[in-house]
């Protein structure tokens, strides 16, 4: 019987290998659900959790930058424990960490050896429960953060990127950097920071993923240790910010900057990543401007040698979606490249793509995501992203299926309705030219 059972296992394994996806299991404990992938080959663990609506858009008016400020302080000193002590404890436990935030959410990633699991989680819990930060660190970050915002004013690339978002999202929180504003940061008080976790980190906006040498009991331990004490409902989650369609600028927004190369960012509307048209847009964007084999790259870089690189990408946030592209070139060539961008958008709209392009794009798009999956951290952030997007555990299979099912006809029809060279907006950071 046992032999038979083994045989079955093997056959099942073999069959499963035919179509590879993630080995994700869902776990549920204490009202919190999460995804987990078990890998016992190395006694190491990667843990990630995100809080929706803890990103910069949800910061109070006048205190723009609160999320960033809090995130920078998270692994600094507390009133009862110096920064040095915290770093030392994390080092001894071999815990590595990172924190990420954007317009919408805040995400924490941790790595630690399995044998330090209990102590590591207890210490992480301490950090989340004790957010009375050391005044010295509060002050240090306050001086550091505007420095971060200051980058916006010196680096032409950041300048142009911030510039276009500022204009196309005018009047909306997305117009402001997720690092906040210099003025906002100056108005943030210590009690805003110490109360941040209590206000923003709630069960109803929490998503957890665990990858590595962890069993069911271990996963429960994670939940019990880290999230038992946190409140259920986030007051913020009732706060519904309005969705926005990025505006089209009538003429390029120009930021004068004395640099040898002008940096240009351009935007175009995009469908949301949960719309039926999303993958059609993904395919078209790939062919148009993603990577060094795209139409734009071949024309502007390979054939004409006008730029070092040119790229486009789709961005889909909670409240808005848009295509963003960029290139750098000498001031004299800016208009020439802009004209080519316009022409390529128009050509794709009118003539669509070729069967060969579609075949290549499908092959690429159903394979490239694997590049991010070699490390535990890469797997973790991939599945955590999918979870935050509200996708199912079989998202790889689903997406591949969807992409493979797209026909040339429907994509070209969509191109006609979506792409519009007159909806391109530009922001240029560089020297003024005589016009």
């Amino acid at each position, binding site marked *: 019987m046992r032999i038979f059972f083994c045989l079955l296992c093997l056959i099942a394994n073999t069959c499963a290998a035919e179509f590879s996806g993630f080995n994700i299991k869902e776990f549920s404990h204490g009202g919190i659900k999460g995804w987990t992938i078990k890998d016992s080959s190395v006694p190491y663990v990667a843990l990630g959790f995100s809080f929706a609506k803890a990103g910069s858009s949800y910061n109070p008016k006048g205190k723009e930058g609160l999320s960033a400020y809090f995130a920078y302080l998270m692994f600094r000193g507390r009133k009862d424990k110096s920064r040095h002590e915290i770093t030392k404890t994390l080092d001894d436990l071999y815990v590595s960490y990172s924190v990420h935030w954007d317009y919408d959410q805040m995400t924490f990633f941790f790595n630690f050896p399995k044998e330090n699991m209990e102590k590591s989680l207890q210490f992480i819990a301490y950090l989340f429960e004790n957010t009375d930060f050391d005044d010295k660190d509060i002050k240090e970050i306050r001086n550091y953060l505007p420095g971060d915002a200051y980058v916006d004013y010196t680096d032409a690339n950041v300048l142009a990127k911030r510039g276009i978002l500022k204009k196309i999202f005018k009047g909306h929180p997305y117009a402001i950097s997720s690092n906040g504003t210099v003025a906002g940061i100056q108005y943030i008080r210590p009690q805003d920071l110490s109360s941040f976790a209590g206000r923003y980190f709630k069960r109803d906006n929490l998503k957890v993923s665990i990858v590595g040498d962890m069993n069911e009991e271990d996963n429960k331990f994670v939940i019990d240790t880290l999230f038992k004490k946190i409140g259920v409902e986030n007051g913020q989650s009732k706060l519904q910010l309005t969705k926005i369609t990025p505006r089209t600028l009538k003429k390029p927004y120009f930021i004068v900057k004395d640099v040898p190369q002008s940096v240009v960012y351009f935007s175009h509307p995009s469908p949301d990543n949960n719309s039926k048209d999303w993958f059609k847009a993904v395919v078209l964007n790939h062919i148009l401007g993603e990577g060094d084999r795209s139409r734009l790259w071949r024309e502007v870089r390979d054939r004409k040698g006008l730029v070092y690189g040119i790229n486009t990408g789709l961005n889909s946030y909670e409240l808005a979606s848009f295509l963003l592209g960029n290139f750098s070139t000498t001031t004299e060539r800016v208009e020439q490249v802009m004209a080519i961008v316009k022409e390529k958008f128009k050509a794709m709209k009118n003539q669509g793509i070729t069967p060969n392009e579609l075949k*290549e794009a499908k092959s690429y798009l159903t394979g490239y995501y*694997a590049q991010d999956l070699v490390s535990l951290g890469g797997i973790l952030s991939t599945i955590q992203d999918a979870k935050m997007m509200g996708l199912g555990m079989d998202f790889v299979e689903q997406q591949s299926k969807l992409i493979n099912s797209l026909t040339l006809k429907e994509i070209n029809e969509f191109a006609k309705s979506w792409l519009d060279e007159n909806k391109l907006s530009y922001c240029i950071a560089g020297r003024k030219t005589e016009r």
Partner: protein
Amino acid sequence: MSRFLSLFFIIIFLQSNVYSLNKPKTQMFTLKNGLNVLHVHNDRAPVVVHMICYAAGSAEDMMGKSGTAHYLEHLMFRGTVKHPDGEFMKMIHENGAASNAFTVYDSTCYHQVAEPSRLETLMKFEADRMSNLAPNDQAFAKEQQVVLEEYEARIGNRKGGQLSFAVNASFFWQRAYGRPVLGWKHEIDKITKQDVLDYYKKWYMPNNAFLVVAGDIEFLKFKKLTEEYYGRVPKRVLPARMRLAEPQHFGETVRIEMRDQQIGCQVQMIFDAPNLRLGDKKDVYALLILEHIIGDGSKSKLYKSLVEEEKIAQSVYAFYEPYNYQPYSFGVVATPKCSIDIKELEYAMKASMKRIVRQGVTEEDLEYSKKQLKFLYYKHISDLYAQTRHYASQLSAGLNLVDIEAVTSGILDIKVEDINRTLNKYFKNDPRMTVVTVTSQKIEDAV
């Protein structure tokens, strides 16, 4: 037949039970043509890492032709009889794969990361370029330019690169590690297409290669694929690696100084040290621990004495490379505080090393370092690319799987006596080389 089958499956099942211990699930086999294959199964995510290493690196470059191995690495992307120039990279792109290669002293490796169903295509192309390389003259000339540009970027424009050339050339009297992987510029200039193809014919063959694949591919299916694609490449006569041994040294300390604004102030002390392939394994394990005890992190001996107590250095570290085909070296490095005279740091470092040898290490030092090293190893190999590289580069540098996998447990078995004996054996005398770099600013100050 069915009885036979069941037995077959039990064996596999038992094997996989053994593998459920905390260690990558490795299985090794050799194809009829001599290709050595290691399969590391891990189905946590839909990805495979495919790496092939040839047991030939820059150390196999002919006299007067340094840089050949590295040049060949570049040409391997420039077309075969069946797949002309451009097709390899087109295939990589179409499959959404990531691809690269690297040349080191003892091996040359090619690797890709991809979604598992693409493995067959990757194997088809990789097996093809194992024996059918046919770059055209244009590609050859273009790559020569690229190689020279790489030389300029890494060496011509970088004092740090120039210094490492000088250090290695002076440290190794005979071992090929004295010759740079990139090659000497006057020799790269003169490498002909024939030189590169001669090297290729001499060393690139299944019986001189190590294939390591880690990820979401089931063993039997994987084995079939390797037989189907790599199995077709004919075995050839493999020449022996001709390596000159290092002659006796005489207790000398060679001193290298470099003065340049770009390079910053630093003192390096380099000692002879054994490698895992030829040396005493216990010594190697002890030295791996000592690398940590002496110079890794804020609890290390040198950090405590030079940074915390004497406040003479800003940072310290140690390096030890035991996985080469021939012995390499053990070094300690310190960066001084700006105001310090570099000589002072040099004396302090020497005194610290002597003190460490004299006082030895404590049980507590050892346990702490063992633990941290274990965690570092786990963190490292939890990454499939790192895991693949770990196995492939060590196998192709002449180590066997048993020795490679024994290192972690070997380290855990080391005792305080082993460490102290090793300290006395390798660090009692002055280092064989001292490297001092000073910024030109400092020199002006001194004058």
